[in-house]
């Protein structure tokens, strides 16, 4: 199986690469359009600020390539947010794969949300073997509201999308690569069950 992690200068890519290694898979980093297109599974990572990450995607023309992919694609954290229609962060136009606008958490809660929260209302093979209310690790200030593409929910002041799916595109707001055994199971599901 060929796993490509999209390398566009945003994100803690090393951790994702190591997480796959612990599962017995080698993932390669690439920004090459052909290599990404030919992969069996594609990971779209992202940490940091939305508008500058989107700018990097545009500079490398990856903004045109990602929405056209046909194999399973998993966006993580900011990667998932960039797959949405837009983000309030830096008034960013996203890739428009998920039909939802990313918003900032209100000041009724501490921002960023950092730590382990629970996911529930799980509905995807991505969560096979994962119990309702399992703990996963998140770090974020912006969130995708509940929408028709929501496949997992979390609660932080409001109920929001912890994961999204449309066709071959998957996104998790949490970091499966940092979410202990549950996170490793989710990554394994993405590789072996989808």
């Amino acid at each position, binding site marked *: 199986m060929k796993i490509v992690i999209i390398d566009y200068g945003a994100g*803690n890519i090393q951790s994702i690469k190591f997480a796959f290694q612990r599962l017995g898979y080698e993932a390669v980093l690439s920004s090459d359009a052909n290599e990404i297109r030919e992969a069996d599974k594609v990971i779209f990572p992202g*940490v*940091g600020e939305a508008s500058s990450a989107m700018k990097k995607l545009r500079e490398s023309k990856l903004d045109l390539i990602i929405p056209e992919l046909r194999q399973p694609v998993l966006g993580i954290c900011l990667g998932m947010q960039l797959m949405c229609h837009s983000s309030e962060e830096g008034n960013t136009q996203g890739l428009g794969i998920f039909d939802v606008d990313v918003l900032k958490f209100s000041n009724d809660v501490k921002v*960023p949300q*950092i*730590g382990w929260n629970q996911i529930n209302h799980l509905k995807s093979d991505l969560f096979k073997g994962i119990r309702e209310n399992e703990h996963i690790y998140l770090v974020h200030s912006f969130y995708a509201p509940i929408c028709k593409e929501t496949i997992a929910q979390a609660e932080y002041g409001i109920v929001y999308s912890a994961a999204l799916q449309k066709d071959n595109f998957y996104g998790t707001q949490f970091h499966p690569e*940092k979410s202990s055994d549950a996170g490793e199971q989710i990554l394994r599901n993405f590789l072996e069950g989808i």
Partner: protein
Amino acid sequence: MLTKRIIPCLDIKNGRTVKGVNFVDLRDAGDPVELAAIYAQSGADELVFLDISATEERRRTLADLVLRVAEKVNIPFTVGGGISSVEDVDILLHNGADKVSINSSAVKNPQLINELVAKFGSQCIVVAIDAKQIDGEWLVHLVGGKVPTELNLFEWAKEVEERGAGEILFTSMNHDGTKDGFANEALAKLSTQLNIPIIASGGAGKMHHFTDTFVEGKADAALAASVFHFKEIEIKDLKEELKRNNIAVRL
């Protein structure tokens, strides 16, 4: 529900753990990677590595260690100690650290916080503050709490938040090493005045100290070293105790 975090802290010198540890099942008590993996399996929510080496080779040794930890450990970890530039942070994050913590360098050059946040995002920038209460006033201290400044803890913490830091790690020098509980009054004030997560540090001795710092101190996370290293408190027992006290934890 977002849970309260329990964070063991490992002091590192030249790539090795410094303080003694009492883990019978450890092949090499000085190997931070092995210790980190054991903590990850025993229910720690996050780890902090604090580098206290002072050699020329420090940067490279720490970067290598981060890479080895990231390879083995499946929970988030923060690296701190002597970090003073964008380049330092770049290599540590690139090698797999989830967050970095800066301390003295932020006091000396507060603009560094803005620069790091602009380049890497708030979510990975922790500002550590060591403070001591002197004649009623909480003053920020530098160099591991040895050198006093004239900065007021609460004013500095507010500035740190305004400059974009994602989290504050507050160590009370009055409580550190006493094993007599965390500085809950100051912590509660920080947690109420600021809108970013606060990690409590300094004073852990008994399990109820953690309950107290989450309830009275309103802390979002609690950090400790020796109580975990010497197995005076098992993380699993601690979390069960917290749960009995209706504190949300990951079990």
